[in-house]
Every structure is written in C-alpha cells, then in structure tokens.
C-alpha cells in the first residue's frame, strides 16, 4: 500500500518518457522545419493558439463522449460488453466490471471538464476572440500564451496513460474524495493528480494573460464599459481562475503527497483499509472537500460564464437588437463571480460538515440564483420584439436560454437543504450538471463554432448539416437528460455500476434504456459536427467578407481571416458601445463599433 511504504515514487516512468519524447520531437521539428514550427507548433499568435485549443478539445470531446456511452450502456444493459471497449482499453469485461465502470464515469467527467469545456471556452474562444474584440494585436504575453497551451500536453499524456498503467485507472470520481482516492491501488489515480496539476498551471498562465490583456491592451475608444460581453465574461472568468486554481493545485499536491510520500493531510485517525494494517494519521478527511469545492464551485462558473458572454454576443446579432440591460448583465456576472466564492459548501450539505454551517451556505446559494435569474430575464427581453435571423447561431443562442432556465431552476431544489438530503448523490444531480454544462455551455460552444468559424478559417460551415446537428442534438438531449430528474428524485444513485441491485430501483430500467438510446442518437449527431468541422476547414464555402453576419463588434473589422501577426489592417478604434443594432441614429440600421462617426452621433440608450 502506498501510504505505508511511502517514499518510493512508483508511477511507471512511461508517461514521463512520452512527455520527454514530445519535447524531443518538437525540438526536431524546430531544427528541421523552423517555419512550420513557428507557425503550427510553438506559435505565439493568439489566433493559432486558439485553434490549437479548439482542435485538441474537440478531439478529447470524442473521448469523453465515448466514455459517456460506456457509462450509459452499463445503465441500460448492465453486465454486457460495451462494443469496442475491450479492444480500446484492454478490458476483457468490456467495461462491465464495476472497477471499469468507475473509471469510465471518473474519466468522462474529468476529460469533459478539464480537457473539453474549460479549454474550449477560455483557451479556444477566449484566445481567438478576445484580443480581436479589444482591437489588440495579440495577447499581452504571447510566450505565456503558447506555454499555456503546451502545458496541456503533459496533462493529456498523463490522463491518457492513466487508463493503461498497472493497477487500475482513476476511479474515485472526478471529485476524487480521499480516503478512497488515497487507497486506490492503481497508478492511474496518481497520474490523474498530475494531469490536474498541469491543467491548473495552464489555466493560471492563461488567466494572468487575459487579465493583463483586457486591462492594458484595449484599443482606443474601447473603454471597459464598451467591451462586448464575451470580453467581459473572459475577464471575470480569469479572475475566478486566478483566485481558485492555486487552491486546487495545492489540494492535489497534498493528495499526491499522501499517496506517494506518506504524509497524512487527509488521513484521519483510526482507519483500517481492506483489513490490512491500520493506518493512522492526524489529517481531516473533509478538508479535501473544502479545498476541492473551493476551486470547483467557482469552476462550474468558469464552465458557464464565458458561454454566457458568447451567447450574449450571438443573441444580439441573431436578434439584431442590442442586449437588454448591458450593465446589469455585467454586474450580474460580477455578482455571480463574487458569490461563487462563498457557496462551495452546498456540495457538502451531507458531508458531515457542521450543519449550522450548511445553513450559511444555503443562504449564499439562494442568493446566487438571483443574478442568474436577472440574466435570464435580460436575454428573454432581448429576444422580445426582435427580428431574428435564421442562422445556426440563432438556434444555439435560443437553445442556451431555454436550457439554462431548466438547469438554473433545478439548482433551487438542491440549494434547499432538506430537499437536498433526498437528491444529493442521485441522478437528479447528474441531470442538473448536464442541463447547465451540456444544455447551456455546450450549445453556446456549438453556436460559437458556427459563428466564429468564418473568421477563423475564412470558410463557412455547411448550413444544412449544421441545422441538422443542432436540431437533432437539442431533441435527443431532452430525452437523454430530462428523465434523470425523475429517476434521481425517486432514489436512483449516481456512480453505481448496477443500480438494479436495489429492488427499489429495478422499475427504472426501461427509462434508463430510453435515455441511453437517446444518447446514441445524440452521439451520432456529434459525428455530423465533427465531419462538418473538419471538412469545412478545407473545403467549406469561402468567406471573403469582413463581416459576414453584419455584427457590430471589433473582431469583424479585420480581414477574413485576420492578417498574420497583428490582426488589423485598419487602425482599430471604437466610437461607441458594442451593440449598435437597430440603431435609431442610423434609421434602425446596424452601426458597428468601429464605423467612424458620421455627422450624427448615435443616440445614447439608457445604458450606453
């Protein structure tokens, strides 16, 4: 057992060798093909780095989605092999054994959160869009920017290897609560810790860069309150990342030390493990949960705030109407960010934390529902009396708003402590997670891909395929996740390989099969996206206009795609706020932020 034998650092060396190998390959490319290297590998151009994040996240998304199918397959047809998993992972049970089920849901969530959603939002769109929206030539620290991308690679490698190292993979949930995560014998859990650690570094490098860029690099005329909401959301998110991620880093370091070097931060007094020698420490089990959620609650907002910003930009464009209540939108994001730091205990109501403290967290949690509600009303008011364009990003933004309502409302049940007693650790939580992270964030990401793709690659994505993808995904999504609210409140636990072991859950098999069948449809729809994305990159219809969507913000004032390193061919200067749609001064037409003032200055709205 690790804890007892301490000090021998027994993670296989292979993943380290692979990291080293990657560095060697990079060095070789640098020597052999320096141009290629500077352009595609160690690019310091925010646009290329954004694309790098985008592509690697989409590929990891396939892995995460496949693991989700594995999880759901077991819930629908327990004890049967998931097709292909035997060959892929070398599991002779094809994912049917509980240890492999545990790995599947642990890695599904870890991959989706750390490798897909966070890098997509902050790494890909933050990188590509924010400097353009600010009229900046690049990020403040291009080197740091490249570093932030390449720090993801050790994490990719460690996490990928965690499936294959001796012992077993990481299977203590993405929350990795000790002591379970400390007693897991396989090296997978250690690799998981190191992976998370590197992701943390990457995030911090990114956050420093965004904050500096947004504070220092805005073009003439772009005051803070003339920034589009995407830039605002990345600004606020970066502050969250900067304050919260070091806590996660420290926590996983402590976990790693407990696992490998015999410390006992999280090892309590009086514990036996698997009837082996008694292990005794002076640590606190619940300490991990406090540290973890102190990061991970803000992190769930890291998972959604940028999506909110991007949706706001897309929605204004789709509706051809300014965002209703621009300043309340900014203030509510700031409010969410602030409150986000004092609600972490709502994940711990049943954890053994002092119940009096639970009450404090309950009140803070109720309060955080408020700015979320305000944002919803503002989006709805934006849509009201608009003139919506039939575009794919219109559908995405609309889907976001309606799914966000469901995810937000289900949160109120969990905030109510006595109700949470019943639904904590059940599928009701899984439903909630997915309505916010998939229903809201991922739909925003889909929309953003369709919206910014022409600017990124100078080509359009195929529209019929895009509509099919959006509509099928939306419908299949409801069937995959909505019933989880119901089975969860009836007592179906999450993270159980065979829930039908319990007599009181046996009646829920059919509905689980329905959800899994819907997931298969959902997954098929993502294949459409993947094909459309990679095909359009090379063969989509060319886009030569600067501003194909007739949008108002600064990124549309660049050539398509933006010129080399430096972005702008015209001096970027903003003359007004970001949402000059239906501008009365222009006779109801669109006035871009960058259009030079004509004789008539644009009229000011209340919040201009």
């Amino acid at each position, binding site marked *: 057992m690790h804890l007892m034998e301490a000090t021998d650092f027994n993670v296989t060396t292979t993943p380290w060798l692979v990291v080293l190998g990657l560095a060697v390959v990079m060095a070789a490319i640098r020597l052999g093909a320096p141009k290629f290297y500077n352009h595609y590998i160690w690019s310091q151009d925010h646009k290329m780095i954004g694309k790098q994040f985008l592509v690697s996240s989409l590929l990891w998304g396939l892995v995460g989605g496949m693991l989700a199918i594995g999880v759901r397959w077991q819930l629908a047809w327990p004890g049967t092999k998931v097709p292909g998993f035997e060959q892929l992972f070398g599991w002779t049970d094809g994912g049917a054994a509980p240890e492999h089920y545990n790995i599947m849901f642990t890695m599904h969530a870890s991959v989706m959160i750390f490798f897909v959603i966070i890098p997509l939002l902050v790494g890909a769109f933050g990188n590509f869009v924010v400097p353009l929206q600010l009229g900046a030539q690049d990020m403040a620290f291009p080197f740091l920017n490249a570093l932030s991308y390449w720090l993801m690679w050790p994490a990719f490698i460690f996490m990928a290897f965690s499936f294959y190292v001796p012992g077993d993979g990481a299977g203590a949930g993405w929350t990795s609560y000790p002591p379970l995560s400390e007693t897991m014998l396989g090296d997978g859990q250690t690799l998981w810790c190191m992976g998370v650690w590197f992701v943390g570094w990457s995030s911090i490098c990114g956050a420093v860069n965004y904050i500096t860029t947004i504070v220092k690099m805005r073009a003439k005329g772009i005051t803070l309150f003339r920034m589009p909401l995407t830039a605002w959301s990345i600004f606020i998110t970066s502050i969250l990342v900067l304050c919260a991620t070091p806590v996660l880093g420290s926590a996983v370091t402590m976990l790693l030390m407990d696992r490998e070097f015999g410390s006992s931060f999280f090892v309590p007094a009086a514990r036996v493990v698997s009837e082996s020698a008694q292990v005794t420490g002076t640590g606190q089990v619940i300490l991990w949960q406090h540290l973890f959620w102190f990061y991970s609650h803000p992190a769930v907002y890291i998972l959604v705030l940028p999506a909110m910003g991007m949706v706001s930009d897309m929605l204004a464009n789709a509706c051809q109407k300014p965002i209703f209540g621009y300043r*309340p939108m900014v203030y509510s994001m700031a409010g969410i960010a602030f409150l986000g730091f004092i609600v972490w205990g709502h994940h711990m109501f049943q954890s053994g934390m002092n119940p009096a403290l639970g009450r404090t967290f309950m009140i803070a949690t109720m309060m955080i529902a408020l700015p979320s509600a305000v944002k919803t009303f503002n989006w709805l008011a934006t849509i009201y009396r608009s003139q919506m364009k039939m575009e794919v990003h219109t559908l995405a933004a609309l889907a976001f708003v309606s799914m966000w309502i*469901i995810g937000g409302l289900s949160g109120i049940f969990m905030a109510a402590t006595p109700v949470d007693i019943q639904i904590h650790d059940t599928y009701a939580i899984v439903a909630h997670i997915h309505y916010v992270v998939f229903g809201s964030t991922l739909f925003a990401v889909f929309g953003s891909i369709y919206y910014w793709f022409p600017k990124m690659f100078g080509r359009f994505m195929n529209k019929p395929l895009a509509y099919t993808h959006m509509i099928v995904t939306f419908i299949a999504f409801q069937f995959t996740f909505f019933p989880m609210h119901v089975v969860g409140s009836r007592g179906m636990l999450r993270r159980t390989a065979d829930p039908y072991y319990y007599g009181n859950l046996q009646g829920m098999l059919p509905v689980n099969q329905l959800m899994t069948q819907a997931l298969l449809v959902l997954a098929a729809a993502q294949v459409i996206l993947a094909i459309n994305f990679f095909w359009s990159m090379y063969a989509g219809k060319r886009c030569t206009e600067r501003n194909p969507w007739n949008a108002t913000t600064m990124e549309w004032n660049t050539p398509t795609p933006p010129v080399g390193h430096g972005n702008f061919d015209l001096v970027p200067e903003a003359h007004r706020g970001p949402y000059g749609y239906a501008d009365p001064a222009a006779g109801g037409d669109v006035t871009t932020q960058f259009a030079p003032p004509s004789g008539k200055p644009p009229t000011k709205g209340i919040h201009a």
Partner: protein
Amino acid sequence: MTQSIATPTSRPVLFVLALVLVIALVFGLRAAFEKPSTELKTALTADKTAGSVIEVVDGRRLPGTGNIQIEDELVAIQRVTKDGSPVNSGILLLGNPDRFKIVERGAAGSSAVAHAAGAAVKEPGTLFFPENFASFGDAVDGLFYLILWITGIAFILTEAFWLYCLFAFWQKPGVRAHHSDGNHKLEIIWTLIPAAILVLIALLQAGMWREMKMEIPPAGSPDVFEAETAAQQFQWNFRLAGKDGKFGTVDDVPTVGELHVPVGKKIRMTQRSVDVIHSFFLPNFRVKQDVVPGLAIPVWFDCSKPGRYPIMCAELCGLGHTKMGATLVVHEVAEFDKWLAAESDKWQGENEGQDRPDWSGGSAKIWWWWDSNPMATKYQGDSKTR
C-alpha cells in the same frame, strides 16, 4: 411593430418540430416507465430451481445480469443465448433471444444472492420522492412540492414566453427590430420578485434542517432507541446495545446488512466508518448522511410503520460500492423486545469469559477493533467531534 411573422418556411417547420418534441417526450416517458415484464416474474415464481432457463416474450427491458425481487425472494438471473451461454456482447437492441438463466436464488437477506439487496421493494407510488415513513418527512416533501410549484410556474412562464418569441419574432423583410437597450424599472422588478421568493424558501427550510440535522434526540430518554454504525468497504455493520443498555459490552448485538429497530421510537444512531467515506441513505425516511472516517456523526429518524426498507450507500466507496445495500427492519415494539433479548442472550453466551470478544461473522473484527482501539475510542460516542 410586434406583429413580425416568421419566415414562411421556418414557421411550420418549427411548429411541427415543437409538436413532435412534446408528443414524443410525453409518450416516451410514459412508455419508459412501464414496469419490467410481469411475465418474467410469474415465470420465476413457477420455476423453482437454479440453473434452469426460462423464456419470456418481451424481456428486452431487463438487464443482462441482475437480481429480480419476487415477494420475499431474490433471484439472480443472466440473459443467455439458445445454447445457454451468457449474452455478453451488448447488442440487445436488436432482437436478442429473451432467455434467462436462473443463476441463484434465495430468501431476501440470505447470503445466497447478497445481503438484503432490495429486500424491500417499494414500487414508488409517487412520480418523484418514494413513499415516506418518517415524521419529519412530510415537511420535507411539502417543501419539495412547494419548490416544484414555484419553479414549475417560473418554468412555464419563462419557457412559454421563450416559445412565443421563437414563433413571433423571425425576421420580416423591411422590418426593424424594436430598439431598446434596457429598462431600470424592469430590472428592479425582476430582481426583487425572485429575491423575495428565494428568501421565502430560505426561511421556510431553516427550521426543518435544524430539526433533522441539528436537534438530535438525546441518548437515554425513554422514547429514544440507540444504534451504532461502522461502515466498511463494502458492508454495513450495525450494533445495538444488548440487555444492559450499554455499548461495548459482551451482550451487544452486532448485525451485518440488517438494521433492526422498533416502530415509533426515535432512532438515534452514531455513524462511523473504518475506511473510506460511505453515505447512509434511507430513501423512505428522507435521511442521508455521509459516514466519515475519523468522525462520529449522529443521525436520527423515526418510522411509523413496521416493514422492510432499503438502506443504500450513496457515496462512491470503491469497487463494491454498487452492491453496498442493506435493509432496515422495523418491528412492532413487543416483537422487537423479544427479538433483542434473544439475540443479546445468544451473543452473551458466545462472548462471555473471553478476553477479547471473538464475535464470529463479518462484523466481529470491526467491533472488536473498534472497542479496543485507542485512536478509535477517542471518538467513541463523542458526537461533539462534528
């Protein structure tokens, strides 16, 4: 101005899509909640032997392997092919034979299948929470339904407005969107109203939470019955004080996978874990409490009806987590007293005179270890550690 119409093509398409979505959701959910084949249950009741293969017409809604509860019996079944070999490639979607082999069968609670798995089948009579038997549960359910009403109304209002917009505001050639970039009065209204509702919900629950988690009935009063838990990977060990009313003596009654309590009394439990975090979940009593190594956490509930109810482990605790169930057995008071006295005598007979009570059975080691462990006793019965 508000009269904008959807583009001629988009409106019917969207309308049909929305209709299909709603109809499919309603019917899909209804179909999905139908009970798994009663036919199989009947077949299993008739066929008594393990090893035999039975066929049913529509078994597709049954797992590849699993336990089926038939009255007081648990039957482990495995889906098999014609020649009796297990079906373990999961292509069950497409007409696999609906043949099941009986692997094992035994009375619920017998080790034949697994302790107490689903020993108490409660087909939930309600759509959401399962039936409640605890005195504080009605208040919780009331709160749940209140929130369901509030969020339900908010959901319908906002989503109906959303749907209305979805149909009403598609671009019409030559028409401009209405210009508005905000409204202070509206912002204030839609901040204050939800705020008031949220404060209301917050206030309503404070008392409930205190009653359930903070006002643990004191040990020693006549209407309180005490029990202890030592959760372990992957079983629930319980202990009741024997006839002498004290824990840690030779007449204690240890049980594995079954917790016996009298009806009507307030049950006060001390929850401990010896290895990792588990979670003590009684779905029919609105009780859930993580069981944390290093802490002794008090929990209380009461039960209004004798019977057998599921105890579930709600926190991932490792490989066997998925089968870490147990049964709560609620007895009539008189019957319980008789049972406890007999058990207590039995254990006393076995343990008396031994240096260390060498209790046989799965729980023995744990309780012996617990009572003799200096680090553990630091936490013995000390509910102030929280």
